[in-house]
């Protein structure tokens, strides 16, 4: 069974990736940004493809809400 990558895997500097992620939504309203994030989610889920990996990611995302 494939395991979700839990260590940093961003090519190059993580800070640079994060800046790019934020910059990609610059100028969008909250509503547009939420739509953008939803489309991004589907695009990335399709890229990963592996249902078991995705399930691990869904579960991990659940762990962090307060």
């Amino acid at each position: 069974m494939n395991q979700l990558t839990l260590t940093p895997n961003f090519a190059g500097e993580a800070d640079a990736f994060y800046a790019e992620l934020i910059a990609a939504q610059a100028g969008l309203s909250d509503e547009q940004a939420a739509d953008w994030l939803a489309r991004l989610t589907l695009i990335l889920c399709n890229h990963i493809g592996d249902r078991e990996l995705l399930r691990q990611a869904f579960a991990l995302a659940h762990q962090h809400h307060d």
Partner: protein
Amino acid sequence: MDLPRYPYHQTLEQRAGQPQRRPVVIVGAGPVGLTLALDLAKRDLPVVVIDDSDRIGEGSRAVCWAKKTLEVFDRIGVGEAVAREGVRWQRGRVFHGEREAYAFDLLPEPHHKMPAMVNLQQDQVEARLVRAVQLDPRIELRGKHELIGLEQDGEGATLTVRTPDGLFDMRADWVVACDGARSPTRTLLGLGFHGQVFEDRFLIADVRLAPGVRPRGLDPARPERWFWFDPPFHRGQSVLLHAQADGLWRIDFQLGRDADVEAERDPARIKARVAAMLGTEGFELAWSSIYQFCCRRAERFRSGRVLLAGDAAHQVSPFGARGANSGVQDADNLGWKLAAVVKGEGGDGLLDSYEFERLEAADDNIGHSTRATDFISPKSALSRRLRKAALDLAAHTELAKPLVNSGRLSMPTEHVDSPLSTPDADPWAGGPSPGCPAPDAPLDGGGWLSERLGPGFVLLAFGWPVEVDGLRVITLPGEGLAASRYGARPGSVLLIRPDAVVAARWHRFDAAAVQAALARAHGRPS
């Protein structure tokens, strides 16, 4: 077209007050009960069908008939007529807001007798079935016979029936309930019927376009299925447009959870909705209904000598055309098994296998139907947003298209764990595995393989003929379309059940193995 009726007559049995024992009584003269009656009659079983009405239900209701159903209809003599009278559509278009999100093509697989799908209003299909039943001397169709009591003992069932001449009792060895979602039979059995009720209301309207009217560029000569998510003429909801025969179109408007049902029934209001959608008033309203749907099934499909089939056993949303299609396939699965048990050729386990296989099919259909429904009516702001994302992406990338779900085409369920199947001993590179439907193929001398399957078990022999006692053998070329569809090579043999399901397959013929598989498929494991 005039719809046939089956008026009430007092029967001899009733007048004499002396119940006559019947092998099979079917409760309910809808598409499922009538299909089963014709199937049993073809196996030379006398059948009585009772129905609380004496006529075909009003309105079109079910519209789409899938290939497997058409093949079943063909075996009982009405398939060619339904395929001929039905509308064949190929292109489906999905709109999101103002834009077309994507279009799909059913791309009919060539070299099948029956198309992937035809649209024909349910009353027209029932009319065909009723006429066929009325021509068959082995079937007695009794109108205005309402089932109000049902008792079982070791030898059979007693049905108490209310007629215009009062109550009387009938006796049957076996009873099949095909009496719809509100099945009185199921209630009398005390069987639970559980699942999910969807709160959304839907309005269906059948409209006939005036001659020459082509709303939104729709060409009546080239019918298409159109589905809108959140269209400008019906904001926040979905709308479906489907072609039916005789110039009739089916429109299905989602009304939401808080719809005022009484106000929505007003014909003026319905016409206004249709006019806004079509952009014309050049139509007449033929029929309409408001409904709410459920995805649920009975806890069991068998209770002693009573079996449930069709909506009496399971109910789905209309998206995906799985209601009537799965009901007809219930009848197809049950007919040969019941006949074999009545004739003493099959073990009682055959009827348990009916329940096993059709419960599996019902759960499969309910799963597909629930997913389509959840996509069509999202339950949270986030699921609505993800749906919007899928629809927006589908307009310009391939990746999101398979996520867009306006109903998935009904396909026969693959019963891979069926107790009637013999697992493969040889490695197979493809083709239907045991428990899966047997595909059609054209025959060299003309005609179709699907026409030659049934009414009993059949052995397909690829390459050269073989012989097995009491088994009909169809010899097919060792190479070519049929061989490739079945994953066969010269010398392969496949045992096919009467309902066109693969029971077992081998690359090398062995008469003893075939006999053992045949016994197992009869519910008599050796």
